[in-house]
């Protein structure tokens, strides 16, 4: 396939995938798009929303649409790391045998991840970054494509363990699942309370996903766009060379280099989905919120003023845009 055909194939595959998910998941376009972008960019997603908004359904439907293994882990405070990764079990034959945990799947749904202890949460770290699990000194590779989709409930914070920054940084996107509108809700009710449930067909394979990831990596990024993206990352640091005013006021720690990688990767996927061969500044702006919102560590003042991470990201984007002017003034 040449470049044009590759791009065409990518768009077609992703359109089909989205359409297939859309059969089951009503509304939530941004969330679905975000999950698909993360899938194409080989990233993991943290979904935050109230219970019953279809988070689990989305993951399950995605797994069905690409016909890949899917496992769901319900995190609880008494869960141990071995419950996630697996363990060596003594067998009747007299030896030890590694019994794989639920992490060994293509799509892993870590439901209510913030209810597990930090120890258990950290068991995901190696799997998410290295795509392998080490048990008893023996590394066990995870099968590609591998994607973790964790959910967390913004309410009922009692008895929960907020995710450590190191783990948050490993999530490519943090998507906020909004409450459905009345029209969407009516559609949800109609689809689920009458007739038969829609059946999801397989529209892509594991190989297709890997191919899609390879294609998106080829998308061009001009030096100006790269500079624009990096300016955004730098502006999120209150103690950087050019911090934005809002970051200086409300941010304790800015985005990590992994954030810069994520924003460019996401921009590439967005460009491909939009039928372009280059990343635009608009793509970077679109990726800014899902990439940066969980990577900014806000200070007490933001909490006191009721400023959210999304508002801070908006402020950073505005500050960077203000400095980005037309080079020709006539």
């Amino acid at each position: 396939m040449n470049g044009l055909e590759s791009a065409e194939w990518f768009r077609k595959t992703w359109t089909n995938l989205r359409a297939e998910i859309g059969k089951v998941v009503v509304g939530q376009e941004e969330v679905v798009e975000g999950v698909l972008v993360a899938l194409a960019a080989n990233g993991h997603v943290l979904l935050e929303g109230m219970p019953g908004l279809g988070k689990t359904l989305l993951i399950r439907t995605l797994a069905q649409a690409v016909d890949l293994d899917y496992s769901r882990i319900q995190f609880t405070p008494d869960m141990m790391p071995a419950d996630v990764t697996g363990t060596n079990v003594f067998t009747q034959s007299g030896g030890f045998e590694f019994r794989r945990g639920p992490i060994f799947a293509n799509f892993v749904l870590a439901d209510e991840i913030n209810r597990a202890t930090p120890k258990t949460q950290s068991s995901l770290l190696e799997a998410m970054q290295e795509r392998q699990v080490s048990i008893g000194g023996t590394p066990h590779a995870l099968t590609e494509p591998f994607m973790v989709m964790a959910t967390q409930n913004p309410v009922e914070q009692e008895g929960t363990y907020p995710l450590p920054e190191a783990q948050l940084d490993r999530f490519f996107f943090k998507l906020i699942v909004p409450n459905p509108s009345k029209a969407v809700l009516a559609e949800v009710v109609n689809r689920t309370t009458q007739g038969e449930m829609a059946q999801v067909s397989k529209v892509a394979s594991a190989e297709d996903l890997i191919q899609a990831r390879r294609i998106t990596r080829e998308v061009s990024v001009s030096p100006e766009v790269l500079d624009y993206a990096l300016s955004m990352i730098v502006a999120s640091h209150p103690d950087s060379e050019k911090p934005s005013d809002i970051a200086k006021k409300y941010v304790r720690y800015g985005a990590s280099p992994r954030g810069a990688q994520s924003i460019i990767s996401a921009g590439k996927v967005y460009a491909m989905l939009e039928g372009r061969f280059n990343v635009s500044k608009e793509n970077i702006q679109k990726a800014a919120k899902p990439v940066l919102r969980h990577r900014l560590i806000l200070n007490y003042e933001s909490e006191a003023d009721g400023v959210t991470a999304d508002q801070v990201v908006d402020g950073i984007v505005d500050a960077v845009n203000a400095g980005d002017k037309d080079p020709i003034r006539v």
Partner: protein
Amino acid sequence: MKLLQQQLKRFGRRVRLVRMWRGAWLGLLSGSAIALALVAADYLLLINFPPVMGLIVACASTLVGAGIGFFLKISELSVAQSVDRRAGLEDRTASAFHKAESGEFFADELSGDAEKHLGDVQPKRLYPIRFGTQQMSACAILAVLVTAVYVIDNDLLLTAGQKAAKAELKEATAKVERVVRELEVGEGAADKTAEKKLAAELRKFGKELERGRLDREEAMQKAQKLAEEAKKLSEQRLEKAQEKMEQFQARGLQEKFEEAGGDLDMLKDLQLDKMQMEALNDLMKESGADQLPNNQLDQNMMKALGADNSASEMARLSDAQKQKLAEQMAQAQKDIQKKLESGNLSDEQRKALEQQAKTMEELAKKLELSDDVKKALQELQEMKEFKEMQKLMQQMQQAQQQMQEGKQLTDEQIKQMQEQMEQLAEQMKDPAAKEAMRQAMKEMIEQMKQGNIDAQTMQQMMSMMGMGMGSSGPDGSGSTAGGNYQGEGENEKGDPMELEGKGKITAIRGERDEKRGQDAYTEIKAPTMVGSRTSVPYDKVLPGYKKTAESAVSNNKVKGKHRDRVREYFEQLSGGKGK
């Protein structure tokens, strides 16, 4: 890539055109504003700026602005970025510009995509030629400028009478302007600032005349005033020219002096007139030649200046020089007198000698004491106390001489001297007498400072008044004599050195040995003097003397009962400090 570059050039040309358009308007706006300000300043007579020049300034700035806009550098990348932004191409063009030949997977597709999108965009849509606020402002200011120029330079709105009056004034103004130009063009003006100021005032006067701001009377007054200023300036110019001429002469003289190798003897051959001599004296003073050693200077000056020196040259001579000159004059006068008395002279020789004697006499008079000094001395000598003191002094000198010859004073002599001293001391207790003496002395010192009394005269007077007489030793008598002192001494390092200068010689005589009998001991302390001041300050010599005294005390050279007294004495001298 080639197509992409062609398309970018298309946009680049458009950008250049729009910039030229905008630059021209910006130039017109700024030029008109400046021109308007200058025309206004000219109208208010602050500067000279012909109104028509305002239009030229506006046009020139328009052209300059357009030129700058056209020739300002435009990079293709900037055009690409700008087009992306203005046409909403989502960084297609800039990315293609960078990546078209990078060999990346999507490079060709990227270029093709960018070219396709650029082809759909019209440059004039992205970079339109606008007529906005800037252009409107420029037009408005230009209109005001044109109106101002028209009103100032045009007679259309005037009546026939006003036109005639204006024509007359213009004629007068033209005349003034001619004068001004001559003033401005004139070379060699000594004071350019004054000339410029006068030219500006004349031009202002011309403008005021032209614009009818002055009535006839005022115009006359002002013209009169300016004429006076011009006359004054021309006089100043003449004076400065004369000064310059003199400077040239002086410079020429200096060159002559240098030609002569700085030898004053050779200057006689130059046959200088009086003015040249004065200039030469100034030059000598400036170059420090008058600081030459006294002897050399006296001889050279006598030779170079001859007998026709003015009082000013005489006043420059120091006391020592005057004294020396007087001695030489006296000797010369004696020689001339001898020659005249010898009688073996021709009439011409006699006449020449008489003339020389006359000149000498005049110079000698200048060296003599002034009437004031003579008067002060006379008054002093007539004072009763002074006469008493002189009498006592004579007796004491006789007594001293007698003692030096080994003769003892008789009891009668001693008693008489004691009585006289007590009498004098009693008289000196009288405040009026004391004050009269003090005043007389003060007057003498003043005269000495001014150079009216030489040092020798002063010393003689001091001697007459007994001022040189020191106090007696601890158990002996003492005497003082003033005079010049030349001797040998040691510096701080102990190296032998010549002591020169004027000073008071103090001789202390007395009984030093603890054993009975006489010990001829004379210690002479003569502080060296430089000019009128002691060369060694008191505080410099005191530690040395103190150390010597301490050494004498510690080595048992001073009798036990006197040791404390010696210590106390030095402590008091050093301000009561122990060491």
